């Protein structure tokens, strides 16, 4: 199983630089997910690893060997494309076996392999069909089977689930998660869906504007985002941000702004007091705000309900706090009227602080 290392990888299209030095190391059998908003350079990074795009600067190492001068076929990798990229004139079996046939493997071996992977993704009865006669989800699985049949060390996925409906996507996501445990491969997976990222990844790499913002386990990224962008990108509904200032009162430190005045405790308070800059942004996830009318004022937010979205067991409330908007979750059974004022307690450990100018976490 190979290790992959990207060493200050740069991509330029003419004068436009779209990737500005990507450094990344992926260990054995690791499921790495690249996430980020549209246009941040995820596909470009993946395609450079695959050898479909030239490297403008920097180097890609596989097992410590530079590979950027190699053709795609010399890199021992398989790829699942966003639009499946099946061969329209070949049936499913021929699609799956194309790489093996090019490699002139013995026929018995090819047949056995096709049967094995078709079984794995549940395509056995469609082997004689052309891609044009398959549904989106089936094509998706053919693309997956074709990649699996190659038996290469590196697996690349470029938003493989983006064309599917919500239900099928959930189903495929679960299948993928199971598959990644069964086959021991190095997988790199591109998506802009952070739920996919959270559920599949051993390690998530958040990209933005051609830079890596942060990398780590899903838990690290969720609990300790290094900046405001990552904090806002990971988690659904997204983190709430409130602009405020540090205020010292009676030997204690508060974040205070329009419509809120929250006391800091423990580790957070220590970080706040050692931070020179007073202007900060307070970040709180909806999941760290709980409805509690009796909460202590200095550890809670007072919110005016603007909109209520019923999503099942939970309702998502969009509320006003000063000039800012805050999203909270509440049990749907709780009666809530629009315009009502509610008090939400801030869970201890649920407070994130960011320098307002640099947006870096304290």
């Amino acid at each position: 199983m190979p290790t992959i290392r990207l060493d200050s990888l740069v991509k330029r299209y003419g004068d436009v630089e779209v990737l500005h030095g990507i450094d990344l190391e992926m260990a054995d059998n690791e499921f790495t997910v690249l996430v980020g908003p549209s246009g941040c350079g995820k596909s470009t990074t993946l395609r450079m690893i695959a050898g479909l795009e030239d490297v403008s600067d920097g180097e890609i190492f596989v097992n410590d060997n530079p590979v950027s001068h190699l053709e795609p076929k010399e890199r021992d990798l398989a790829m699942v494309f966003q639009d499946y990229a099946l061969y329209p004139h070949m049936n499913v079996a021929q699609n799956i076996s194309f790489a093996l046939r090019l490699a002139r493997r013995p026929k018995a071996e090819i047949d056995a392999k096709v049967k094995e992977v078709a079984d794995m993704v549940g395509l056995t009865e469609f082997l004689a069909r052309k891609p044009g006669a398959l549904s989106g989800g089936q094509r998706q699985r053919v693309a997956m089977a074709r990649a699996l049949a190659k038996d290469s060390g590196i697996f690349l996925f470029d938003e493989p689930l983006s064309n599917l409906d919500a239900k099928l996507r959930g189903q495929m996501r679960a299948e993928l998660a199971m598959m990644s445990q069964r086959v021991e491969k190095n997988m790199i997976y591109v998506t802009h869906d952070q739920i996919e990222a959270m559920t599949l990844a051993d390690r998530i790499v958040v990209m933005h504007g051609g830079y890596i913002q942060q990398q780590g386990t899903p838990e690290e990224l969720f609990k300790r985002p290094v900046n405001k962008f990552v904090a806002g990108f990971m988690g659904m509904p997204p983190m709430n941000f409130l602009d405020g200032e540090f205020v010292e009162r009676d030997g204690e430190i508060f974040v205070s702004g329009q419509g809120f005045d929250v006391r800091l405790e423990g580790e957070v308070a220590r970080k706040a007091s050692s931070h020179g800059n007073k202007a900060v942004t307070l970040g709180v996830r909806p999941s760290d705000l709980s409805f509690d009318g009796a909460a202590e004022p200095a550890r809670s937010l007072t919110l005016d309900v603007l909109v209520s979205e019923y999503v099942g067991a939970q309702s998502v409330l969009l509320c006003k706090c000063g000039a800012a908007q805050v999203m909270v979750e509440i049990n749907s059974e709780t009666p809530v009227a629009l315009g009502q004022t509610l008090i939400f307690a801030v869970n201890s450990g649920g407070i994130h602080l960011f320098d307002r100018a640099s947006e870096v976490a304290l």
Partner: protein
Amino acid sequence: MRTAMANRLTPYLFMAPAAIIMALALMYPLGYMIWGSFREWNPSQTIGEAEFVGLKNYIFLWNDPNFHESLGVTLKFAFFVVTIEMVIGVGLALLLDRDIRGMSFLRTMFILPMMIAPVVVGLMWRYMYHPTVGTFNRTLDGLGIPTVDWLGQYALMSVIIADIWQWTPFIFILALAALQSLPRSALEAARIDGATPWQQIIHIKLPLMMPVLIVTALLRLIDAFKVLEVILVMTEGGPGLSTEILALRISRTATEFRELGVAAAMSNYLLILLLLLTVGMFAFNRWQEARAAKLHAQVEEEA
């Protein structure tokens, strides 16, 4: 009820004038030719004066060695021209389908021959083939190589070369268009699957271009059966009957031999041949559509 009927008829009403003019313009000459082919008809007579002879003209042609020769020349010409043009045209398209500076200029250059009037092409090549002052023989002579009697000894080959020069671009642009509409990602997938450039052509590009290529070849074939001007200007069918393609023989039968009935019958033989080709082409299209529809229905059924 009545309005529904009127609504249904309205489109036909609007189409009627165009349809009638089309029918007259198309059918009248065609009918005239078919009518004439059953007669012993001399240009000095009106068609009414000509004697009705039934299938005599057709039977005469069926047994006429000169007609056979002419048909043979036409078939040979069409076969070589289309085969060679397909190979060169598709080959060039495969070669030039890439983003290199100056490529669009090169592509434009390649399609220029197609834009020249056939008569001009014929004249041009006749001068280039001229036994003493032609470009080819002067060049050969300059290099000390024995000259070739292009339009004498190798007339059919020379005519074929000229046609290839003019019509390869047609296949080239259609093949290029087909290539550029191929799914890019399927080609990328093939690269990852380990296909060499040559294997990409054999296993991916050519099979996917095939429907377009077949139609292109048929169109060229139909055209090649009707070629006239270039050959008329270059060789007038000679020497002997060696380059007398059907279109030329038809025109000579009508003007030189003054046998309009025979000429019309010959035209009808050619028409039947072309019809068969066209029907073949449509049948191929139909078959492809039917296959696609069947597969589609299969998917619907399962969904």
